[in-house]
C-alpha cells in the first residue's frame, strides 16, 4: 500500500484543522492570578491581579501563563516573566512558588509538570518567585540562581582530565551504592529546597552532590576536600542553616532525601575535626 498524496493538503482543510485545535483548547476554567511583578532587581515589586479565562484543565501551569501572556501582549503590556525551558521536568529552570508551595501543591513534580486540573474554577492562585537572599529577583518571577553554580564550581566534581582514565569496568561499584548515588545525582538544581525551607537553606542541594561523590569510589580522593570547599561556598553565598524540618525533602521535585544532609554533615565534621590532611587550595594554574 502506498502513502497517498492527501487531498487534505488544501489551505481550507489546513485552517479547519487549526480551528479544531483552538476549539479544543477552549477550557471553561476561570481563575484569578495574584502575580508578583517586579521590573528589575533595583525596583520594588508588588502583586498584580490578572484574570486567566477559558483555561483548559489539560493545560500545564506554564501554558496557562502563556495564555495570559498572549493576552497581555495583545494589549501591549509587558508579559509576566518566568523561567522555563524543557517543560518536561528535568532542566530545573522553572521556579514558581504557587499558593505557598514551590512548584505548586502537588508533590514530586516541577512547575512545568503541574496541570490546571489541580485547580478549580474560580480559584485565586498566588504566584511568587523563589524567596531567598542569595536568589535575587531578576524580573517578576525569575530569580538569579547562580549561587548554585558557584557552589558546584567550588568542588562539585571529580578532578579527572579528559582522556587517560581507566576502562569503565575497572571500577566495580555495588549496584545498591550506584543506585543510591544515582538517587542523589538526580537533583535538577531548581532551588525548590531553598524556596521551601523556612531558613532558606541550600543544604539539600549541596549535600546531594557531596553525597553522590562520597558514595562512589571515584569521589573518594577528594571527598574531604570537596565537602569543605562546597560548604564554605554555600556559607559565603548567605544561605540559611538546616534545622531538619524536612520541608525541602517534601517539596523536592526529584524527592532527594534529607539523609543526604546528614551524610554531608558527617563528612564535614570528619574533615574538619578528625582528619589530618591539609585542605589544598584549588590552584589557578594551568588547569
Amino acid at each position, binding site marked *: 500500500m502506498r502513502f497517498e498524496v492527501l487531498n487534505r493538503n488544501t489551505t481550507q482543510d489546513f485552517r479547519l484543522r487549526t480551528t479544531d485545535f483552538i476549539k479544543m483548547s477552549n477550557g471553561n476554567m476561570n481563575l484569578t492570578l495574584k502575580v508578583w511583578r517586579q521590573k528589575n532587581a533595583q525596583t520594588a515589586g508588588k502583586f498584580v491581579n490578572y484574570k486567566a479565562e477559558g483555561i483548559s484543565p489539560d493545560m500545564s501551569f506554564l*501554558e496557562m501563563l502563556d495564555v495570559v501572556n498572549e493576552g497581555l501582549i495583545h494589549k501591549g503590556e509587558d508579559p509576566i516573566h518566568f523561567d522555563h525551558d524543557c517543560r518536561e521536568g528535568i532542566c530545573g529552570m522553572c521556579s514558581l512558588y504557587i499558593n505557598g508551595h514551590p512548584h505548586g501543591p502537588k508533590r514530586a513534580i516541577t512547575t512545568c509538570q503541574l496541570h490546571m486540573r489541580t485547580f478549580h474554577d474560580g480559584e485565586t492562585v498566588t504566584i511568587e518567585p523563589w524567596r531567598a537572599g542569595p536568589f535575587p529577583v531578576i524580573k517578576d518571577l525569575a530569580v538569579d540562581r547562580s549561587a548554585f553554580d558557584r557552589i558546584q564550581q567550588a568542588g562539585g*566534581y571529580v578532578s579527572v582530565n579528559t582522556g587517560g582514565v581507566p576502562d569503565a569496568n575497572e571500577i566495580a561499584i555495588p549496584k545498591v551504592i550506584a543506585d543510591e548515588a544515582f538517587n542523589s545525582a538526580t537533583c535538577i538544581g531548581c532551588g525548590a529546597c531553598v524556596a521551601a525551607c523556612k531558613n532558606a537553606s541550600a543544604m539539600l542541594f549541596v549535600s546531594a552532590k557531596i553525597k553522590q561523590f562520597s558514595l562512589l569510589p571515584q569521589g573518594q580522593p577528594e571527598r574531604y576536600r570537596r565537602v569543605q570547599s562546597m560548604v564554605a561556598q554555600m556559607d559565603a553565598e548567605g544561605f540559611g542553616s538546616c534545622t531538619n524540618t524536612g520541608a525541602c525533602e517534601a517539596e523536592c521535585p526529584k524527592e532527594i532525601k534529607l539523609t543526604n544532609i546528614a551524610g554531608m554533615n558527617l563528612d564535614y565534621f570528619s574533615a574538619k575535626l578528625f582528619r589530618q590532611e591539609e585542605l589544598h587550595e584549588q590552584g589557578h594554574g594551568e588547569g
Partner: protein
Amino acid sequence: MSLDAKIPAGPLAEKWSKHKFNLKLVNPANKRKYDVIVVGTGLAGASAAASLAELGYNVKAFCFQDSPRRAHSIAAQGGINAAKNYRNDGDSVYRLFYDTIKGGDYRAREGNVYRLAEVSVNIIDQCVAQGVPFAREYGGLLDNRSFGGAQVSRTFYARGQTGQQLLLGAYSALNRQINAGKVKMYTRTEMLDVVIVDGKAQGIVTRNLKDGKIETHSGHAVLLCTGGYGNVFYLSTNAMGCNVTAAWRAHKRGAFFGNPCYTQIHPTCIPVTGDHQSKLTLMSESLRNDGRVWAPKTAELSQKLRKGELKVTDLKEEDRDYFLERKYPSFGNLVPRDVASRNAKEIVDEGRGVGGSGVAVYLDFAESISRLGEDAVRAKYGNLFDMYYQITDENPYEVPMRIYPAVHYTMGGLWVDYNLMTTVQGLYALGEANFSDHGANRLGASALMQGLADGYFVIPYTIGDYLATIGPKPVDTKHPAFEQTKKEVEERINKLLSLKGNKTVDEYHRELGLIMWEYCGMARSEEGLKKAKGLIHNLRADFWKNAIVIGENEEFNSSLEKAGRVADFLELGELMIDDALMRHESCGGHFRLESQTEEGEAKRDDENFAFVAAWEYKADNQPEVLHKEELVFENVHLTQRSYK
C-alpha cells in the same frame, strides 16, 4: 567554492589515528595565548569547553539558560551507545559504525561515522571516571541494554535520565575549569552574530538577557555547540528556548547549512491536547518493546471513541487494527522510528485517529500486563507510566496510552569537515548543531554519543591544527568588523522592537510550525512543499509588518528574545523546504511521497542523491546556492531498508 571534507585517506580503521598524528600541535606554553569561544553548554559545548581548558586554552563559554547545567541535552532519556562489547554479543567498533551508517540510510560519511564509533568507548570510560552513576549489575559492572532495535546490547544508561547524568558530568568538568580560572562562563547570554575578520571567525556578538547589554567577545576560534532546530516546528520535544539563531547567523556569515530537511520524528510522544500546547513530551521508545500499537479498524469506530459513545476497553478485538504488526510481520511494533511515525500519521489521515483531537493512535499494554503481570510492567516502565498519567490524567495500566509522533532531533545542521570546521575558517560546529554523523536518520542513543565524542575527543585534537596555523597573535579587537557586526545586531534588535502590529510572535511561530509539520513533516510532496514555500514566504513578510514585540532592549525581555528566534526560524523554514524539494528521494527521516516502493516503503535514489546538500546563503530574498558533497562508500554496500 568546492567542498573539501578533508577525510583522511587510507583504510577506514586507521583514518583517525593517522589524522591525529598529522594534525599540527600547539606548543603547551603557547596554549594559554589562545582564546576559544564556546557557544552552548550542552553535552558538546560543556565537554569541549572543559577539555580545551584542561589543555590550557582560555575558554569563554556562553549559554542562554541561567546555568550551563540546563542545556537541553539534559532531557535525553534512553541512553548512550558505545562499542564496548561488554556483553560478548558480537559488538565491535565496526558494527556500531555499520549500524550507524545503515541507520542513517547511507547519507553520512564513512570516515566520520567510523571515528564516532571508535571514540565511543572512550566516552564511557571518561564519564564513569567523572562519577556518572550509570546503571550497574549486581556484580558491580556496568549494565547495558539493547535500544532502538539494535541487535546487540551496547546502550549504557542511567535510568531514564541518561542525558541528565552525562550533562551533569560534563558540567562538573566545566565547573572544575571555571574554578581553575580557565573558563569564563557567561550565563543568560545569547549569541546573536559571529564576527568575521579577514575570512576567519574571531568573535561573537552577544546580548545579555538580563539587561540587554550588547557585547562583543573575541577569540581565535568560535565553537558553535548550540543544538538543533526542531523548534522550527513550534511543537517538538525540544526545550522552549532551543533555537537556530546562532547557527543561522553563522550561516548568513558564510557557513554552509548541511541537509536542513533531515529531521527525526519520534513515534512515541504524548499527543497534543490543544492550541495551548507549548511543547511535546517524549516517552522512551523502549515502550514499544512491550506495547502494541493499534487503531480502530474504521473511521466510524474512531468517531464513536472520540465522542465517548464507546469505551476503548470495550472495543472488540476484531475491531482493532494492529497496523504495525499487520504490515511488518517480522519487526512488528519495533520498526524504526520513521516507519512507525509515518504509519501513525497515515492512520490519522484516514480518520482513524483516537483521543479528543483524533490525532493519536493507541499503544496498548493490556496484553503485556496479562502476560507479565502489572508489577513486572511497572518495574520496567513505571516512571514513564507515571509521567503519562501526570500529563494526560489517564491511567495507562487501565486504558491504552495514546501516542503520536513529534519532532525530536534534527540531523541537519551546519556543514563541517572532518575537523568539525564549517566553511568559515575558525568557526566550528559540534553536536546536534552540525550535520555530520547521522546521515538522514539518527539511531537511538546516538545523539549523546555524538555530542560527547565531538567535545571530548575530536575538537581537542582538530582545533590545535587550526590554531597552530594561525599562530598565537592576539585577536585584533579594534578591527572594524567587531563594531560593524555589533551595529548590525543592534539595528536588527531595534527593527524588531519597532514592530507594534497585531499578532504575537508565538502566533507566528505556531503558524510556521503548522505549515512545517503539515508539509515538511513525516511525509513530503512536491505539491505540498511548493505550497509551504509560498505560505512561509508570506508569513515572514507579515511577521515583519504585523508582529508585536513588547518593551525595550535594556531589560529582561522575553518578548524580544522570542521575536529574534522566530524571525530566524522563518528564514530557516524556507531553506528546509528548498532542501526537501530538491531531495527527490526518500531517505531516513525524509520521506518523499513521490519516491516510494509499491509497498509504501521509502525508496532511496543513490544514483542521484548520494550527496550531502550544503546550502550557501547569498543575500536576503535570494535563493540559496546548493553545493554537493558526494558521499563515497568504500566499505559498506548500499542496501534498501526493509522491515517486512
